[in-house]
């Protein structure tokens, strides 16, 4: 599904991502972990095109997308959430989903009129379904900025899903959630995978990621130090060292 080859991003002297090689198979939940500042969010920003690659390449479903502009990448099937929640705060919950729905529609629209004037009958039903899936059905008319924290996280996820991606990038979706909410998130991410969407999950919450990831890669100082099944990664000495600062 997604392949990163020799991917690097340097900020001046900082090698935020350093010759990273990753291969994510379709239908997987792929976990990406690492200490603070190890380059996880930067990797997501490279995949979505918000940052320019220093060198290396990104291939999505066999097509190279390294230099595609951001707005085109979504049409090729990439959606994401942000580590610091990012919503259109002055739009309603419904309108926030409409944005993503619109983006999905862009993929199929070639004619000028429907592209700019809009109007799509299927959209309403799909948005309603997305609202129900995320437990936000009764909040449709609220301004996104007025939602509670947990609801904002759910809305962000719903919005990413409304774009009907092939690949979903989740940057610390559990941050700031209570155990109950994390339990619900766990279920939701599994459901997303089972519906056929490949998930790249970045998380500091180890219990969650160890429970649901099919495969995990560990970053430290922008480099991959380990990769494997959750059990393999947990047992890996380099991982223990990176996390605990001591050789295990």
């Amino acid at each position, binding site marked *: 599904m997604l392949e990163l080859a020799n991917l690097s991003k340097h900020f001046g002297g900082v090698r935020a991502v350093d010759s990273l090689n990753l291969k994510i198979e379709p239908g997987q939940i792929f976990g990406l972990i690492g200490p603070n500042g190890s380059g996880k969010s930067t990797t997501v920003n490279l995949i*979505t095109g*918000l940052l320019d690659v220093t060198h290396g390449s990104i291939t999505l479903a066999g097509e190279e997308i390294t230099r595609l*502009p*951001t*707005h*085109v990448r*979504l*049409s090729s099937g990439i959606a*994401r959430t942000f580590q610091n929640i*990012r*919503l*259109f*705060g*002055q*739009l309603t919950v419904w*309108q926030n989903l*409409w*944005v*993503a729905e*619109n*983006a999905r529609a*862009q*993929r199929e629209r070639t004619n000028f009129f429907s*592209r*700019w*004037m*809009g*109007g799509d009958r299927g959209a309403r039903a799909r948005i309603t379904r997305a609202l129900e899936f995320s437990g936000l059905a009764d909040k449709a008319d609220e*301004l996104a900025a007025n939602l509670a924290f947990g609801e904002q996280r759910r809305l962000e996820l719903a919005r990413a899903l409304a*774009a009907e991606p092939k690949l979903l990038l989740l940057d610390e979706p559990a941050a700031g959630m209570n155990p109950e909410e994390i339990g619900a998130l766990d279920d939701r991410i599994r459901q997303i995978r089972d519906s056929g969407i490949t998930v790249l999950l970045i998380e500091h919450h180890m219990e969650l990621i160890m429970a649901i990831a099919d495969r995990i890669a560990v970053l430290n100082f922008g480099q991959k130090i380990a990769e494997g099944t959750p059990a393999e990664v947990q047992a890996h000495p380099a991982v223990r060292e990176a996390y605990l600062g001591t050789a295990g």
Partner: protein
Amino acid sequence: MDGYLITILSNIGMVSFVALSAYILLLSGQISFGQQAYFGIGAYVAGIATVMWQWPLAGALLFGSLAAGAAAGLVGLATLRLSGIYFAMATLAFAEIMRIAAELFVYRRDIGGIESGPDGVDGFRDIRYFFANEFSPLETCLIVYALLATVLAILCIIERTRAGRMLRQIGEDPLLAEVHGINVMSVRMIAALAAGAVAGLGGGLYAHLMTYVEPKSFDIMLGVHALAYGLIGGLGTAFGPILGVLIDIGLLESTRIFHGYRMIVFGGLVAVLLIVRPRGLLDEVAVSRIRRALRRRRDAGD
């Protein structure tokens, strides 16, 4: 109707065009201090067209508007990649360059025994189309409002389309809009072209109603006011900037209540509103409330 009132109404109408022009860019999240330049370009070009080339008014206004839109497009190529304060400064710089160019611009010809045309700092006098064709002030005022109503109607329709919603999304968070598949640069470019054309149309009307224009009519004060109108009146609807113009010209300038203190009152009003209501009186929340109330009323009426 009395002459003074008609003059004020005409002024409100004409200034509304440049207020709408700034508003279109504000929606896309960009603060331009340079929309007065396109008002000026529209004024000069339309004036030249009727006076020097004897074009009919409609053609002259359209041409002035297109010329201003084209100029806005060129400036947009250079400035749209900038953001925030850099965009504001760049647009101001371009507007000042154009104003200075107008001070140097001399294009004089003998038209029916009188030497006419733009004459540098002295401006462009005797744009006498309305006078020569015996339009009354009321008629010219009606022309202004007919065109303003057309522009408003088009803007209101566009705001409800996909394109209009994209514009607001970009205004709120361009990066997030980009991630959602919106080509931010191209939408902003279209907005800049449209904003230039709207200002240019107003400028063409201004030249013909005033019968003369001079470079200093299009200085930064006009641009600052144009921005302030949207910020006072509200960014929730295209009627917002018009409300801003009404408050400033209709209330502060014309009634003379605040005679001599107008700029202080106006400046204070902007400052207070920016703090208590950063998106103006008719902001998005107010507009959606009004829409809902209207809908309820209509439903109850059925």
